[in-house]
């Protein structure tokens, strides 16, 4: 019997496509963010509030993933930015090929920001690179403050934690400081914003983070170009 060393990533094919996407995003100066959470944590609501706040002429597009239905795309289309639904037909995460396929008829030179809403799941989406510049994880206060410890991978790999539905804090036994502390145990120094899409509380901080990321990405690309 011979043992042959393989020494490559299991998802090397996905990683290859993701690297191509990342290069295309960089070439066109598009900041791509991958939003991940459990089902029902408020990713779509956060996107609704985001699109509502951004200026109408902003060069933004959204890809939204679900196992079935066009519901999320229909919710997001009313803001008049390009939106496309990806229905995975059973797959519990988006992969780089799906992104590539759904970008095919968009002109990338018309975009500066691409927001990808992943399928609601804290596990598998963390393994699949989509070519994004950063992952953002959303955790709602109805879920339990130990989520970062139970699902460390996604909290470790995300740049920002959005604690959502904070308007419900008076009604649920959720210790928001413990949640933040748990997230930072897994990911020391993790950035955190606390928002309510219902009352609008904290949305300013989220938009500031987004704006700063767009600015930083632009500066980085300019620096690498010069």
């Amino acid at each position, binding site marked *: *019997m*011979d*043992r*042959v*060393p*393989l*020494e*490559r*990533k*299991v*998802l*090397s*094919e*996905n990683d290859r496509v993701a690297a191509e996407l990342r290069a295309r995003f960089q070439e066109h100066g598009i900041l791509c963010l991958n939003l991940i959470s459990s089902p029902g944590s408020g990713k779509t609501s956060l996107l609704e509030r985001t699109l509502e706040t951004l200026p109408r002429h902003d060069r933004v597009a959204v890809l939204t993933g679900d196992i079935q239905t066009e519901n999320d795309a229909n919710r997001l289309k009313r803001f008049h930015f390009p939106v496309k639904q990806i229905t995975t037909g059973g*797959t519990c*995460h988006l*992969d780089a090929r799906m992104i590539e396929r759904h970008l095919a008829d968009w002109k990338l030179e018309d975009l500066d920001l691409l927001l990808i809403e992943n399928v609601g799941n804290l*596990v*598998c989406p*963390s*393994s*699949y690179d989509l070519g994004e510049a950063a992952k953002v994880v959303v955790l709602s206060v109805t879920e339990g403050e130990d989520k970062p*410890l139970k*699902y*460390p*991978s*996604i909290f*470790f*790999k995300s740049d920002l934690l959005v604690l959502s539905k904070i308007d419900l804090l008076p009604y649920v036994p959720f210790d928001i400081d413990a949640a933040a502390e*748990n997230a930072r*145990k*897994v990911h*020391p120094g993790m950035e955190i914003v606390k928002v309510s899409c219902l009352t609008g509380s904290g949305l300013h901080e989220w938009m500031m983070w987004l704006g700063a990321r767009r600015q930083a990405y632009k500066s980085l690309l300019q620096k690498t170009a010069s």
Partner: protein
Amino acid sequence: MGIANSVLEAVRTEMSRYPGSYPCKVGVRIGELAAIDQDALRFCFEAMILETDLESLELGIEVCPRRHRCQVCAREFVVRDYDSRCPQCSSLETTCISGDELELAYLEVEEYGPSTVGAKSTQ
């Protein structure tokens, strides 16, 4: 399921380089931060090879702990209970150096021989 499928695809691709042999065991390396449940992976793997030419393929899983390196004193250590503080100098400035692996490590192949039971030779 997608991960198990990717492992099997990689085995098939690799085996095209070894005509006259069949794969016995594939080894994967999984970091504790990789969000992969071993039992679930094994279950999917076994379900996918059932009644295929890879039915006898064994899956070897090696779990890799989360390791950090201290940026102050360069000590490398295993992180337990999410405590990423350096055990030597207590600095919190430590960076992750391993623990999110999801890698194919090795493949064990056996040549078809006259005594190989139930296996068809391609030569």
